[in-house]
């Protein structure tokens, strides 16, 4: 397994060019092209803002201002996470031609989906930066140093899950549909459109068990709230768990590797 893990480094050129291809191909033929990477998260934000400010204004937390910015801090990383996992679940099947007809390292495929979505996430960050300046949110520069750590933890966590989900979907196609619904539920079970403080006392422990809660809170604390970053212990713990998850995911992937060419 570790031998194979080491090979991953050799594939970075391949991963790089496949990610570039993915990004190029996604918007090829559309009028706005690459701008969709900016427009998509903005439009998503607009939808949520519309729901919670116009349709259901009563539900919206009063003490969180500006609410749209708060929501965006969680929504952007969530989009990276959920798109990655959903696409990864389909990645081996979509890449079946490669696995069956070319000598091709299959693990590259889930990596590519996660990295391609990470690029989209990065492209959304300037929007947050502009908004932070516009709303004159005080920025704690020391806190901002934590941002790369948070991104790294999320990357490991997402990769781990992607590596778990991709080979299992090859054997159980049902997983793709289950995941779609699970992700919707997971989104609402994470403090993204509401702050953690608004969670009912009885459900708080449940939210704590949700790994993405700690990522969302970390993003919010670093970007949105002023005051020191107090969630770092949780974040580092999640980082440790993510390493374990990544290794477990890779182990499973490696174990099922030989079955792909036949089952895809």
């Amino acid at each position, binding site marked *: 397994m570790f031998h194979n893990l080491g090979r991953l480094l050799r594939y970075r050129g391949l991963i790089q060019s496949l990610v570039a291809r993915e990004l*190029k*191909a996604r918007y*090829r033929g559309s009028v706005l092209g690459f701008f969709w990477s900016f427009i998509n998260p903005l439009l998503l934000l607009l939808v949520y803002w519309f729901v919670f400010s116009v349709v259901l204004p009563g539900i919206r937390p009063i003490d969180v201002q500006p609410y749209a910015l708060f929501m965006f801090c969680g929504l952007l990383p969530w989009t990276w996470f959920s798109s990655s996992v959903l696409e990864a679940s389909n990645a081996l099947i979509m890449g079946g031609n*490669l696995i069956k007809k*070319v000598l091709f390292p299959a693990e590259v495929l889930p990596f590519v989906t996660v990295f391609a979505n990470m690029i989209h996430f990065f492209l959304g960050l300037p929007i947050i930066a502009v908004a932070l300046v516009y709303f004159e949110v005080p920025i704690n520069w020391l806190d901002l140093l934590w941002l790369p750590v948070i991104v790294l933890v999320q990357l490991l966590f997402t990769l781990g899950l992607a590596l778990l989900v991709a080979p299992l979907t090859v*054997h159980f196609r049902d997983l793709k549909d289950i995941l779609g619904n699970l992700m919707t539920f997971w989104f609402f079970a994470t403090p993204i459109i509401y702050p953690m403080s608004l969670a009912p006392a009885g459900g708080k422990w449940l939210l704590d068990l949700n790994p993405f809660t700690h990522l969302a809170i970390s993003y919010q604390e670093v970007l949105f709230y002023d005051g020191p970053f107090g969630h770092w212990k949780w974040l580092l713990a999640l980082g440790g768990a993510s390493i374990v998850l990544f290794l477990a995911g890779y182990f499973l992937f490696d*174990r099922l590797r030989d079955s792909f*060419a036949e089952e895809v």
Partner: protein
Amino acid sequence: MTNSIEVDSVSKVYRRFARRRQFATLKSALLSGSLISDLRPDETFSALQDVSLAVPQGQTIGVIGPNGSGKSTLLKVVAGITKPTSGTVRVNGRISALIELGAGFHPEISGRENVFINGIMLGLSKREVAQKFDEIVEFAQLEDFIDAPVKTYSSGMYMRLGFAVAINVDPDVLLIDEVLAVGDQGFTHKCLDKFAEFRRRGKTILLVTHSLGLVERFCDEAVWLDGGQVKATGDPKRVVDAYLIDVEEDEEQHIASGDAKARDATEAAADEIADPPDMFQATEGRWGSREIEIVEVTFEGEDGEASHVFPSGARMSIRVRVKAEQPVADFVFGIGLFNAEGVCCYGTNTDLEELKSDRMAGEGEVVFTIDTLDLVAGTYKLDVAVHKRDGYPYDYHRLLYTFRVKSRTNDIGIFRPRHRWTFPTNIRFTGPLE
């Protein structure tokens, strides 16, 4: 000399498709690292059984065999795309597998970008692709279209580009699966030239093909796979001949059973056909009053054995068993040969040949002998008939019997006249192609 490819008693077992066992395969894959250990024998299928093969460096090996004999599986196992269920495979050097051309192309992006990504997938670095880029494009003859998205390519362009990339990876071992049927004649020649160049440079080639001529001309050795097992290996000419004989035997059985089926069908429908259908309509059938009945029709070769496959130019006899319950005075025996397109190649009867009928009673055998079957290779059907001089049919068998003519020459047309070439001394040939 070292071996480039060593395949040591390799077996490959596939799972037969069954939804029910989905979980079992996952479980056994997880627990024992094998997909099929949990399956019953009737749920598996052996694509390769105990295949061993050693290919010395620089040799070109042709793999032949009928469809489903495991040729492609062997190639995939050697390429490392699938793992053998048991046995080991060792390959020295960089492999390039031409199994499906352009398998990794993304339709939305340009040919240029696809060349780069495909090259990297096949193990080149970005710089290496850049170096070979012009050569690749020139080989694929796509200079004008290289910046268009691949989805706008014709299938020929697509394959040519895939081939050009794969061949320019500069492999030590080249695996080719029936991909020469890709382009037009010109491109095929270019591919063959490229393979020849590979041979000269001491590369190893494993070629899976149905083109037996290619194996004979091009390969140092041939391997004949059948039902997942190696049936013969060695000198290409010998192996190809052995394979052809086997194919003939199969064909023989196939024609015999096909003819029997057609006759059974007409037998069942015989009562319904009251009026003889249009004589010149090429459909199978049987009709007639049966005052004289054709009981059996068999083909016989030079050796006197019943057969359905004959070499072009050999002797063929058509034996027709006939029976008349009552004595008959007015009768004509006729024969017609038709090719697969329904063209009448030859037809004659005893009336045309001015034989006047006198009397027939009881049973007997009419033999129609063709001394030299001067037809080109192909499948032919036979009309056999007994009728009155005015055409009233006793028993008419239309296209109910099939025979094949085989030939090592791929000449065209229908009839092969006996012929020879004569040349003056200043036009010379080196003899037959190797």
